[in-house]
């Protein structure tokens, strides 16, 4: 019966060991194996070998674990004097509010050298606040608050990403963190809201016509955020897309069914016949003012 024969057929001829593998094996040999001849077979039968195999990695692993764990625990211990900032994530934007009521969108200004504590939640899907330069990340979970803290050490602008997949424009849900010198930051914090003039009237109208009932960040209706809409690419549920301009916004208000944004239902009422062109312009201006 055919059992394995040791004499090798031409189809199968042993070759000298590949040169590339030699150093690796020699390394293993030096560390773990001793002696010559069939050292491995002997070792396999000896009682000592498993310990080298198990104990060496175990020690390394425990050390790594302890180190990383200590750092991690620190991430979850905010210093008591940290400056609070509230963060609300929404498909697909970041809304932040400082303790004096100043709001920002997709941007976070912080002073250098002072711990900042973010108190965060999401209005829809799970998002994740990620600033690679700070090595921090935390998911924002609907229905509860999560927190994160950091101290910016150098002035500058740093990227902010959404790291947890949250739908169509997950990749666009970015922004920046601006770290400023404390004095500069204090000045920035006191500056008033940038909305003025026509845009301010637009904001009035935005509330009066009830747009904010659906489109405001706190709204419970699932409607797209309009902040910074101008110039942004928009995806439609039928697969088309375009870059939002003034005409598009006008169409969206008068003929909302024409272009239904992907991920939303066509529930927006038409305002055709109810809204003057002046009002329309003001609203467009308001939407423009929300951009950066």
């Amino acid at each position, binding site marked *: 019966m055919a059992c394995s024969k040791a004499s090798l057929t031409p189809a199968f001829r042993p070759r000298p060991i590949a040169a590339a593998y030699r150093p690796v094996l020699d390394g293993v040999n030096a560390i773990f194996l001793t002696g010559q001849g069939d050292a491995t077979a002997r070792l396999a039968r000896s009682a000592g070998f498993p310990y080298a195999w198990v104990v060496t990695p175990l020690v390394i692993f425990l050390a790594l674990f302890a180190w990383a764990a200590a750092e991690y625990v620190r991430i979850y211990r905010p210093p008591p004097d940290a400056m609070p900032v509230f963060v609300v994530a929404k498909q697909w934007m970041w809304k932040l509010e400082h303790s004096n009521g100043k709001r920002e969108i997709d941007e976070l200004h912080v002073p250098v050298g002072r711990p900042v504590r973010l108190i965060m939640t999401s209005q*829809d899907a799970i998002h994740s606040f990620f600033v690679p330069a700070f090595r921090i990340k935390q998911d924002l979970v609907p229905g509860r608050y999560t927190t994160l803290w950091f101290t910016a050490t150098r002035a500058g602008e740093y*990227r902010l990403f959404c790291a947890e997949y949250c739908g169509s424009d997950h990749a666009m849900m970015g922004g920046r963190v601006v770290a400023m010198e404390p004095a500069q930051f204090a000045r920035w914090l006191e500056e008033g809201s940038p909305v003025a003039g026509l845009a301010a009237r637009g904001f009035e109208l935005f509330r009066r016509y009830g747009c904010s009932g659906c489109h405001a960040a706190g709204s*419970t*209706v*699932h409607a797209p955020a309009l902040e910074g809409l101008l110039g942004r690419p928009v995806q439609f549920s039928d*697969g088309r897309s375009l*870059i939002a301009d003034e005409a598009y916004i006008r169409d969206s208000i008068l003929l909302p069914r024409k272009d239904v944004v992907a991920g939303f239902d066509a*529930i927006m009422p038409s305002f055709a016949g109810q809204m003057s062109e002046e009002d329309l312009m003001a609203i467009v201006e308001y939407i423009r003012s929300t951009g950066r």
Partner: protein
Amino acid sequence: MSARKHRPYRRALRVWIGLMLLLAATTGSAWLPLGAWNSVVNLVIAAAKVLLVAVFFMHLRDAGGLVRLVACVALFMLVLLFSLAASDYLNRHIDPAPWQPPRQGSSSFGEPGQLSLNVPQTVEHGVEVIPEPAALADFDCA
């Protein structure tokens, strides 16, 4: 198999009586004001009942070690699931945030409405979508 009993069905009857008594016990005990112990009593009785069923009706008594092991392994896995998850749930402190899920007015079956059905989002379709490389306004900040 060796211990073939002389009177058939006797064992089934006896186990049945035991089960009924336990059922009475568990139902009755539910009205005793024992606090958290109510649940403990209930679960212990349930475990006893299941043990009766498993050992006698399901013949674990006559079964080999392997079958007995298999009978326990799923329980063991569930214990693992619960105890490790407990390390999360028992140690979490949750600050609830107000959240009203935006109920989409879509079809009651929750699947995409006619919109995406009409125009399947195929890959070829997507290729044509954006005519010129869109400037990514979002990334212009750095």
